[in-house]
């Protein structure tokens, strides 16, 4: 049954392209996260001093943010990637996951533009601006 009753509508391409973007974002982030997890389990260390010890991996101290057992900024993550630290690989996967919805909004602008739907190009740009403002505001 599946694809009966749908089909040759105009604008279908937009859905297919968007869905591909999402699928690629999701699959690549999952693959990278799995790679990082496997590496951590096999080598027995996270790359940031916590080893594979659950108490240290889940250690939380509000007052010692820079001393946590994982990187929280891009620069440290990139450095960690160069030496294949498991946690930095996982974080890369998470960053791709987080970036996917934003990418989707960007893609929608493009696709509404190709369709010639000016109203929705404007609406989507407005949404993107508000999103950026909300990130900068906090």
């Amino acid at each position, binding site marked *: *049954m*599946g*694809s*009966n*009753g*749908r089909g040759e509508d105009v604008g*279908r391409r*937009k*859905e297919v392209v*968007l*869905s591909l973007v*999402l699928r690629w*974002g*999701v699959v690549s*982030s*999952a693959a990278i*996260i*799995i790679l*990082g*997890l496997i590496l951590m*389990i096999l080598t027995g260390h*996270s790359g940031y001093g*916590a080893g*594979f*010890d*659950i108490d240290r*991996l*889940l250690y*939380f101290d*509000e007052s010692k*943010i820079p001393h*946590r057992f*994982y990187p*929280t900024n891009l620069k440290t993550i990139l450095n960690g990637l160069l030496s294949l630290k498991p946690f930095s690989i*996982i*974080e890369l*996967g*998470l*960053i791709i*996951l*987080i970036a*996917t*919805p*934003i990418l*989707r*909004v960007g893609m*929608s602008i493009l696709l509404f533009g190709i369709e010639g739907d000016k*109203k*929705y190009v404007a*609406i*989507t740009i*407005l*949404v993107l601006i*508000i*999103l950026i*403002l*909300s*990130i900068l*505001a*906090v």
Partner: protein
Amino acid sequence: MDPVIFLLIVFLVSAAAGFLGSLLGLGGGVIVVPAMTLLLHINIHFAIGASIVSVIATSSGAAAAYVKERITNIRIGMFLEIATTIGAISGAVAAALVQASMLFVVFGVVLILSVIPLVRKIGEEFPMDVAGDRLARSLNLEGRYYDEAVGRDIEYRADRTPIGFGMMYVAGLVSGLLGIGSGPFKVLAMDLAMRLPMKVSSATSNFMIGVTAAASAGIYFLRGDVNPFVAAPVALGVLLGATLGARWLPKARSSLIRKIFAVVLIMVALQMIIRGSTVGV
């Protein structure tokens, strides 16, 4: 606990959260947060960071299927996203001025009350005789999708769009004020006010929550609330669950989805009321 066992438990819990979240247009926080804090005794910061990751993973994992099947209405989602994002900003600003614990109770009660109109249309499969309002017509807030459960195309259009838009603002406001997901409020706005088909409401909410959560995820990330040891199994579990949920939704009856939604809504509401009435929100 052995770290591998820990990873497996978090993975399985997250798969359940992803499955439910993808069906109902929620982020899965309703399952992830209590499982983390009550069952696994993880610090609340990590639980909230994990719940943000869960929202994004649910949204993207399910959206790939829903967008392709055209159950998601991208136009409706984008238009309403204006209200949600502005609401979220005003909520974040107002959060400093008001007492969160009181608000948890208030909005918890609002959610419980919203179960009443939901129950009144509990057996409804599709909204009937929706004329659509002027704003909906001028913004093209309509669509059609193939419903596998009944084996035919379902055409629909949005009704009472200004009210839906207003409710979406409130949805954003609540999430900004309380730092919780707004999936339940979004689905209610589309289902009750705008009278969209249940599956369209759920899939469109799913699409929207990912965008909103991604905008705030960066802050949690930099703050160090996203612990990779917790977030990795959450992301993988939720992605699996959401993919399975997104496969099942097209085949499921809309009335069944609404029934599950009503039950989960009560769970969310009770969680909010408990959280608001106990010390240490």
